[in-house]
């Protein structure tokens, strides 16, 4: 009987196995136990009740109470099952859901199998299972076959169409030409097409018409200004230091901003771009004390400028703060957040204090990662912000400046000697006013150094203060003081002839100064636990591949960052290219293929089109890491050329996960400000250089302008051209975000921004109704319309529609607008009659008489600026 029973049982399992795959610990059971049990039974130093559920083989040990946890083949005899069924476990949290308990029972019934032999030992940090390693984003990029889909003009379209077909969706019809032109122009340059651009495009019937537009836009300098902004969000660009309330200025950050713009415009390959930002100093052969030769070479200066990427984090170490060492370590921690989420798409930062909760990243991994950067920061030998500015003097300029300084110093000495001589002469006159007996002791007291004077001497000087004549020559004889001052001015004038000294903000190591990297308990730099060596995250390395080996570079730098950068950009890293192309895609299509662009881990969103993502990543790398060809491929695709209208897609796929329509998006803050300025004819095309300054105005707004405020009053004066440059060039002060930009969701960099929210709140509407920015530019646009179409109201309205909406107004639009203008003009006329302008101040020129017609048109322009057709890109 027994034999038959056993045979029968085996037969049963075999049969079940043939129908259903065998359950394994790693794939089926461990996730259940990890969710409900292992916090207490495995992850604490001493597992509760002696029960450790991390590995299958640990379950063979008897529990503290002597029960048998697991009897393979017999779920009913296994305490693991019984204790859950009795409701005694888990003690905390949710009960194990019935279907999951059923899985455990089935697994035991099938013999409690593992997928493979379990590891002999569990090292520091979490156990990384094959299943965790198998997470999609940790796998090498594999170029997929392009699906064969009829009518899909490009590979991108084929991938999308194949996925749509499964959901019974298809692309929206093609958008009209004007819509596409507006879309692609804003997308690539952050500005609207000029009416002339539209005319030319509509007239171009050649098959290359679309491509020509894309080439023109990509070649425009505005392209780099637009796309640099996306990267500056990710790196957390700011012109101030943040961290403390002082929020001091970071005066040289703009060189990095310009570097980014230039890199985009010249289509610098991203492998180079990344290497320069992570290790430009090591590429250029520069170290902290030995950089002059490098900064005098344009190519190497560019590489050095790029390292400011690693200087972007909020940094309070140059301002008074409560805990200097903490502030230093915070800089490093924040910078690691920026590096890991920008390039790896992983929130490595979670592992600073403890093993990562969701991703297989241990605290050990975190500090190995940090060790790549430790020599450059070295918190125990910290260099404050002022010590990271490297002079751009050439050797000749250095010599010249030194020579001038020497001469100026000599003049200073001369001036001091003159002053002394005059004072001594005065003294000889003054002393005669003292009683004879006091004269010699006074003379001695005067001659003694202040600190060496005896109490008697001090008393004597106090008795006859005006006889001293050691300083304040002007009080004795202003004319002689003037002579001395003239001499001093000679020195100042000479110093002013020194060559202008510029600086670059950079990150460099100090040769030979390499701190021992440590794992810090709970991220507390005062609690080092054990030394660590630099390395890649364990889950990204395999025993067979050691991803990178730091090797010192000839300059004397450790070469850690360069080795790491080389590994990131060698084309084999599973994350870098995917993370980058996903962001590029997101900016074109309104959502990422992975919609959590900074989190490709287990808690991030899964890719909606994994094969498309890999295809793009592979194209990008194979194409030499160049972005412009990728842009071209994307914006010429059917997916990008489709209209925003697809009822089936709107209804069944409101989030547009399948990209079966072009998602409507509100203009980003900078695009909004820039297009308003540009259409009003006010935009000043003055690229690069120090940022346009900002100030608080009396209404409490932060505006672009020159700050003339005091501690008690806010005052802003116009700054001329600087007030009208593109928003990218406006000072980014973390504690004073520019109102027009902040209101429309420009991020405050603490430390950076992975994805901007798109909010719709009343303060935005209030700004468009009442803010001086919009009122002034509406007036400018009205002036422009008058200038371009002086005689005819209809022509002015047509022009407004062309400029703002890239389309002709319908007759009904014109009628509505004319009615509006008529009524508004009448009402403004009444207003001005009732509120005559105040008489000009005496001698001041008379103010121009109010022009209700012009004002009405301006108020119409304001309405058009505020309309959704202007605010949203479709």
């Amino acid at each position: 009987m027994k034999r038959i029973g056993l045979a029968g049982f085996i037969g049963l399992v075999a049969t079940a196995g043939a129908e259903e795959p065998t359950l394994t610990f790693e794939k089926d059971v461990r996730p259940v136990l990890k969710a409900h049990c292992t916090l207490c039974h495995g992850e604490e130093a001493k597992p509760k009740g002696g029960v450790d559920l991390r590995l299958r083989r640990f379950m063979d040990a008897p529990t503290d109470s002597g029960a048998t946890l697991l009897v393979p083949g017999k779920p009913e005899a296994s305490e693991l099952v019984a204790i859950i069924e009795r409701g005694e476990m888990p003690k905390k949290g949710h009960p194990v859901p019935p279907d999951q308990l059923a899985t455990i029972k089935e697994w035991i019934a099938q013999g409690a199998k593992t997928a493979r032999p379990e590891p002999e030992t569990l090292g520091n940090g979490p156990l990384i299972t094959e299943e965790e390693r198998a997470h999609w984003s940790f796998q090498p990029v594999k170029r997929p076959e392009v699906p064969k889909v009829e009518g899909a003009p490009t590979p991108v379209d084929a991938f999308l169409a194949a996925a749509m077909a499964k959901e019974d969706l298809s692309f929206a019809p093609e958008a009209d030409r004007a819509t596409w032109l507006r879309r692609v122009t804003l997308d690539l340059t952050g500005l609207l097409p000029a009416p002339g651009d539209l005319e030319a495009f509509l007239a171009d019937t050649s098959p290359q018409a679309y491509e020509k537009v894309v080439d023109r836009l990509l070649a425009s300098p505005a392209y780099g200004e637009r796309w640099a902004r996306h990267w500056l969000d990710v790196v957390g660009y700011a012109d101030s230091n943040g961290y403390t309330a002082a929020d001091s200025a970071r005066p040289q950050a703009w060189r990095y901003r310009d570097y980014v713009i230039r890199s985009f415009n010249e289509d610098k390959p991203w492998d180079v771009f990344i290497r320069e930002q992570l290790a430009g100093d090591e590429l250029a052969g520069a170290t902290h004390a030995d950089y002059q030769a490098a900064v005098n070479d344009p190519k190497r200066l560019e590489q050095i400028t790029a390292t400011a990427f690693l200087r972007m984090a909020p940094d309070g170490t140059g301002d008074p703060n409560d805990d200097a060492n903490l502030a230093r370590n915070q800089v490093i921690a924040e910078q690691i957040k920026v590096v890991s989420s920008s390039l790896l798409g992983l929130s490595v930062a979670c592992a600073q204090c403890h093993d990562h909760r969701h991703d297989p990243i241990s605290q050990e991994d975190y500090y190995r990662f940090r060790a790549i950067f430790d020599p450059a920061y070295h918190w125990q030998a910290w260099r404050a912000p002022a010590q990271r500015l490297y002079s751009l003097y050439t050797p000749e300029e250095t010599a010249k400046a030194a020579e001038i300084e020497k001469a100026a110093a000599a003049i200073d000495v001369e001036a001091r000697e003159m002053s002394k001589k005059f004072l001594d002469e005065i003294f000889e006159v003054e002393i005669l006013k003292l009683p004879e007996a006091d004269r010699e002791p006074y003379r001695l007291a005067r001659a003694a150094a202040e600190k060496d004077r005896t109490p008697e001497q001090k008393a004597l000087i106090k008795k006859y203060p005006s006889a001293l004549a050691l300083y304040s020559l002007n009080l004795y004889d202003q004319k002689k003081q003037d002579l001395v001052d003239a001499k001093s001015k000679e020195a100042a004038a000479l110093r002013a002839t020194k060559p202008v000294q510029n600086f670059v903000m950079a990150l460099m190591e100090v040769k030979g100064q390499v701190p021992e990297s440590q794992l810090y308990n709970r991220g507390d730099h005062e609690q080092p636990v054990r030394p660590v060596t630099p390395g890649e995250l364990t889950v990204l390395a395999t025993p067979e591949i050691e991803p990178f080996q730091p090797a010192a570079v000839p300059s004397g730098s450790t070469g850690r960052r360069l080795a790491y950068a080389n590994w990131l950009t060698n084309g084999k890293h599973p994350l870098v290219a995917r993370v980058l192309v996903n962001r590029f895609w997101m900016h074109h299509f309104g959502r990422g293929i992975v919609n959590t662009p900074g989190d490709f881990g287990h808690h991030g969103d899964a890719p909606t089109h994994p094969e498309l993502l890999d295809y793009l990543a592979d194209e990008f790398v194979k194409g030499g890491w160049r972005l412009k060809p990728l842009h071209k491929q994307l914006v010429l695709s059917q997916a990008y050329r489709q209209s925003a209208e697809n009822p089936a897609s709107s209804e069944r796929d409101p989030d547009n996960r399948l990209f079966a329509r072009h998602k409507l998006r509100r203009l980003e803050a900078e695009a909004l400000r820039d297009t308003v300025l540009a259409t009003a004819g006010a935009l000043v095309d003055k690229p690069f250089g120090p940022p346009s300054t900002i100030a608080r105005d009396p209404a409490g707004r932060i505006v672009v302008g020159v700050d003339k405020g005091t501690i008690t009053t806010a005052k802003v004066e116009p700054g001329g051209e600087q007030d009208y440059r593109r928003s990218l060039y406006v000072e980014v002060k973390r504690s004073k975000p520019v109102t027009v930009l902040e209101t429309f969701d420009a991020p405050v960099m603490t430390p950076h921004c992975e994805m901007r929210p798109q909010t719709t709140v009343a303060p935005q509407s209030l700004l468009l109704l009442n803010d001086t920015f919009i009122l002034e530019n509406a007036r400018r646009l009205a002036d422009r319309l008058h200038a371009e179409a002086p005689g005819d109201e209809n022509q002015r309205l047509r022009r407004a529609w062309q400029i703002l909406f890239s389309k002709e107004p319908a007759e009904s639009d014109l009628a509505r607008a004319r009615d509006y203008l008529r009524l508004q003009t009448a009402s403004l006329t009444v207003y001005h009659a009732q509120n005559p302008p105040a008489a000009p101040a005496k001698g001041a020129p008379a103010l121009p008489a109010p022009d209700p017609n012009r004002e009405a048109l301006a108020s119409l322009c304001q309405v058009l600026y505020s309309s959704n057709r202007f605010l949203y890109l479709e």
Partner: protein
Amino acid sequence: MKTARLCSRRHFLQANSFGLGGLALATLLKQDGLLAAPVKPALGADAQFDLLPKEQHFPGKAKAMISLFMMGGPSQMDLFDPKPMLTKYDGKNFPGEIKYDNLAQASSKVFGSPWKFSKHGECGMELSELLPHLAKVVDDICLIRSMSSGVSNHAQGLYAINSGRITGGNPALGSWLTYGLGSETEELPAYMVLSHPGGLPTFQGEHFTNGWLPALYQGTVVRATEPRILNLDPPAALAGDGQRRQLDLLRSLNEEHASDHAGENDLRARIASYELAAHMQTAAKEALDISNEPESVKKLYGVDNPETRDYATRCIIARRLVERGVRYVQVLNAGQSWDQHGSLISALPKNCAATDQPCAALITDLKQRGLLESTVVQWTGEMGRLPVLQNDAGREKWGRDHNTYGFSQWVAGGGFKAGYVHGETDEWSHKAVIDEVKHYDWHATLLHAFGLDHKKLTYKRNGLAASLTSDPGAKVVTKLLA
């Protein structure tokens, strides 16, 4: 013209309803036949979302809510949850097992509360000496000592308490309430957030995001300093009719544009936001200006004291907003200022000194005005703290680590029991053991107080009916309700 009539009628009622509270307004509107909107908007491809007041599922006393949110994890055993065992074992090894947020940090030394507890009010509620003002209103509050979420760390704790889920990007509680019930005012945003002069709390916009609910339901942040809302003054030449004419033209252009883009809720939300902005120009200034509040009221809250001035001012503003029909107001702190990993002994009293008096005054003031009955006031953080110490570098530097397994919050008004203590933690204040209230139970109960069934208040998302309480085990804790 129907909307115009509705506006003017509602405007009239609104202007005359001060002191009556939202209930009165809603009732009047209902009698007037204007409040026909069913609970939550109808869903579907052509769903139209608005902020008109909606019917409750069943009668609920609560009409508005003020959330006093204390990001960082306030220490319950030093404020609300007295534990003599901690005092007894102070400085000794903890005899049981601690669920640490981080094992590597483990210190097993017990940290007895440095502050005395005593009984207050008729109900005899025990509170710490750090909360002398709250002690005077204990008969009006419901103290829950058995909160738990069981998640880890600040982010998840915040998400759990604020959005019912443990990831970011989900709608906040205030969004759900405004989605479910609409607004009682057309002159102010339905959901307003009063930020701290030191900036937003950690996780910033996550505190008041509408997540995947339509943009109409997101929180509007009021600036921490004057001017609290910018751009409220129309240009002189256009004020009044001129601007109305602009808005009418804008509306007709936007309506036409929106009809070309069916299903884009954001366009609708923006159309509504212009109307709201127009009303706010007159209403918001008045609502946010406390200068005409009687001196006695200012003194009650502590506006006269530099230490409490900011929080007192914001609490008065919160009350004024609720009086004017705002559905949900959240008063925020900066950063995570209640996160005392170290120097608890000096840091915690500072936090209390800045907030205790204004919080208590808010209850007194609402009660005097007859508004407490219909207004829920909630005081909570995203978690609590551990009974053992952290940062063992001298008593002055002792702190406590996170604890999501047992912590305290209090609520007042809106149909919650008064003078009542609910639930217990174990003898160490580590884990909730009696009458545990999970964050999702709290959400279910709160919605119930508002007359909403947490299972029915849903939004269609990717083909599923999503609710605030995503956990199937969520239940209404009837013991909390009067």
